[in-house]
């Protein structure tokens, strides 16, 4: 099999996050320990049980996308995706061209889609002002007469926009496993290069659920922190007093490149994307087993897949959502795998500062791992003040830790039970 010997370099990255509208701004905010969480400003959320979130700020889609035809199909999360992907492509300094366009692939972790709230409101006024849905009124409904509403919410629209924008003509896929989407998309992109399907892959994730319906969905589940008075403290992964996650939004994209091709053109290699683990928890739709069953298999596979021994791991960017169940199960899983070695691994959840970016989280956190390796600095796990005896690991506290990282892992676990773990290796340590 050709795949076994082909390795994958990360040569470009781009971010739009609650901490900044590009990778450098986001990274600097992480190092400064600045929180991106505050009162929701996109709509009046004051009546919701949770009315704080990590919003992308000062983002102008018209600056990010100069193609008017594309803009017509673009909702908020697509605009994040186009901007982050553009940054990643420019950062990598390579672009699909005649002859190489079919050797480029694209895999994205896409947001859950629905009509915009204003559109739903119009359909409601026309088809169900009394609260009942009157199907025949759809025939004269203005929103239903506009196919662009439909086009903007197709699960593959974000992918279609990226393919067109960059002229990618090879393998193209859009995946969704809730909060594991971004991680699984990046892992899937790595495999495309390994098995010879592509030489370059644009891989990432995008999401924006800070809408009345998205917020309602998570509020109803009781998954969100209700610490509305102290937004910057609300996301505190692994703290004994943690009480839910904080909804975020944004996009993260990576340019993945076949290692030898990247070396030949003298590309800057942030890190080797060295392995992927992918498992199902099959316990509950919303939780993994407290024993860590599910995440354990994903982390084991990610290490085996990278050929990395347990003692090579220096850093774990945890899923760390700040929900009671996730954080406990994740720590148990890390302990189960690394045993006494676990306390020698630095761990942080960057969701403590930027909230939970849902389908984008895994891709954004993959980019953060690449930056941590590149710069030799680990971002902090903010807001961890009261240690939880069940979450007893070496968390990065106080300030960023200056530390060279040889191997890093990034965890992403989703509703539905999908788990993704990615392995990153310092390019100085990559064999060959």
């Amino acid at each position, binding site marked *: 099999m050709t795949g076994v010997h082909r390795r994958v370099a990360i040569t470009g990255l781009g971010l739009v996050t609650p901490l900044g509208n590009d990778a450098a701004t986001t990274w600097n905010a992480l190092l400064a320990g600045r929180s991106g969480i505050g009162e929701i400003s996109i709509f009046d959320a004051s009546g919701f049980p949770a*009315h704080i979130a990590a919003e992308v700020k000062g983002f102008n889609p018209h600056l990010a996308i100069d193609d008017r035809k594309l803009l017509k199909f673009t909702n908020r999360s697509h605009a994040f995706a186009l901007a982050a992907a553009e940054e990643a492509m420019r950062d990598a300094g390579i672009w699909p061209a005649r002859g190489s366009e079919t050797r480029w692939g694209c895999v994205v972790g896409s947001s859950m889609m629905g009509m915009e709230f204003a559109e739903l409101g119009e359909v409601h006024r026309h088809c169900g002002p009394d609260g009942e849905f009157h199907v025949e009124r759809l025939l004269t409904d203005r929103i239903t007469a506009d196919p662009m509403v439909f086009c903007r919410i197709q699960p593959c629209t974000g992918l279609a926009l990226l393919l067109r924008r960059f002229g990618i003509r090879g*393998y193209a896929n859009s995946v969704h496993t809730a909060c594991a989407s971004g991680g699984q998309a990046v892992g899937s992109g790595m495999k495309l290069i390994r098995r010879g399907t592509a030489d370059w892959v644009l891989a990432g994730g995008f999401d924006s659920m800070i809408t009345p319906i998205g917020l309602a969905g998570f509020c*109803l589940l009781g998954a969100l922190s209700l610490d509305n008075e102290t937004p910057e403290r609300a996301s505190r992964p692994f703290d004994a007093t943690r009480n839910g996650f904080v909804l975020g939004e944004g996009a993260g994209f990576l340019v993945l490149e076949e290692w030898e091709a990247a070396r030949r053109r003298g590309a800057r290699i942030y890190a080797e994307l060295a392995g992927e683990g992918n498992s199902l928890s099959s316990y509950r739709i919303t939780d993994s087993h407290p024993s860590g069953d599910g995440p354990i298999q994903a982390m084991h596979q990610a290490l085996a897949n990278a050929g990395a021994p347990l003692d090579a791991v220096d850093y774990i960017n945890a899923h760390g959502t700040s929900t009671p169940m996730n954080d406990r199960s994740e720590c148990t899983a890390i302990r189960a795998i690394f045993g006494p070695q676990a306390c020698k691994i630095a761990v942080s959840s960057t969701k403590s500062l930027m909230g939970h970016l849902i389908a984008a989280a895994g891709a954004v956190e993959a980019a953060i791992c690449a930056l941590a390796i590149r710069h030799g600095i680990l971002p902090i796990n903010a807001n961890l003040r009261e240690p939880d005896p069940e979450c007893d690991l070496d968390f990065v506290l106080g300030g960023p830790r200056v530390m060279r990282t040889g191997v890093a892992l990034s965890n992403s676990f989703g509703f539905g039970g999908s788990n993704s773990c990615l392995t990153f290796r310092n390019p100085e340590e990559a064999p060959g």
Partner: protein
Amino acid sequence: MADCPKILVTGLGAICAAGMDPESVWHRVRSGQSAISPIRQWNASVWPVSVAGEITEFNARALVEDRKLHKLLRRTEFLGLYVADRAFAHAGFAAYRDSLDAAARNAFNDRTGVYVGTGGASFQDQYVFFPLLTAAAGDLGVFGRELAATVNPMWLLRTLPNNVLGHIGIRHGLKGPNACVMNHSTSGTLAVAEAAEALRAGEAERAVAVGHDAPIEPQTLLYYHRLGLLAADAVRPFDARRSGSLLGEGAAALVLETEAAATGREAKILGEFLGSGCASEAQGLLSIRRDGEGLAYAIAVALENAGIRAADVGMIVAHGNGTRQSDASEATAIRRVFGPTPPPVTAFKWAFGHLLAASGILEAVLALVALRHGTVPGVATLRELDPGFANLPVSAEPQTPRSDVGLILSRGFGGTNAALLFRASPSDAG
């Protein structure tokens, strides 16, 4: 791919308007009787399009017994879970797993993958908010405060796109690699391709690939109509007077195993996965290239991936959705790859509609059944072949496949094209 393990097919499941298992769908297709019928889920008699491939006897409890799931799942998910159950039963998994000791059972579960292709957002899920919107009368403060009293707390979980993946895992205790593809009409096809590649790479020993979709809902139907994609009465792939597609609903599943796993448990072999290809046209959400280049490239990649030549293909199951543009560019793509004398071509959407996310995988299941029967079924709605496709060997009458290899084509929004290649095992020797 000489040093890759062979990937074998050991279980099938299918449901659509034409039947509740692969053999009944096959018999319905062979009979030449389309299962397209007037929509019953709402009164569609005054609608611009009032027919579809609807499962008229839909009964959630008959599809999935587990009562706990009935408040948590939607129509599309019952279809997906049902075909996965049927494919597992067909493959004889439960009996085999029960024969293992505890450690081997755990290994079996960890080494079984689940790959699902699923459809898009359902508008009906959002109408659930109508009573709350009425109560709020435009005041978001009221909307937020009354939320918990008005809307089912499980609303978000009911609408998770990856519900079938998660619930297959829970119902069958499976913990292996997985993916949930949401890529319009290539979703199920790519779920098969990803499952097979995971087995080739040694990530798992067996996997189930599922595609499911239930797009026949009022608002979706109107959008497809307004985009000019729907016919009024029938899907006529490659016909001179074809006028569009019709929506259908259903699901299909394939159980794939490495040769070692399948022969190790003496499984009945139905066929072999040979290869897959995927290519984008990069022209936006709705455009289709006239020259068929994206599809032709996907077919070329699949042939190379399978290590076979175009001349080895015995039957082509075209996407054949019956729209003017897609069929024309598909005929062009087939000519580009296969030259003037392609193998027999057929298409299935005339019989049960366009199942979108489930279409490619259902058609792959039927391709295996067809090849095992040694028959390329006719396109019964075809009256007059489009003169532009003069040498395309598609017919209303059955044809004989040139070999036991089938090529299945899928095309979706976003200009993505996917191709699968399977070899069928002879039906009597399986």
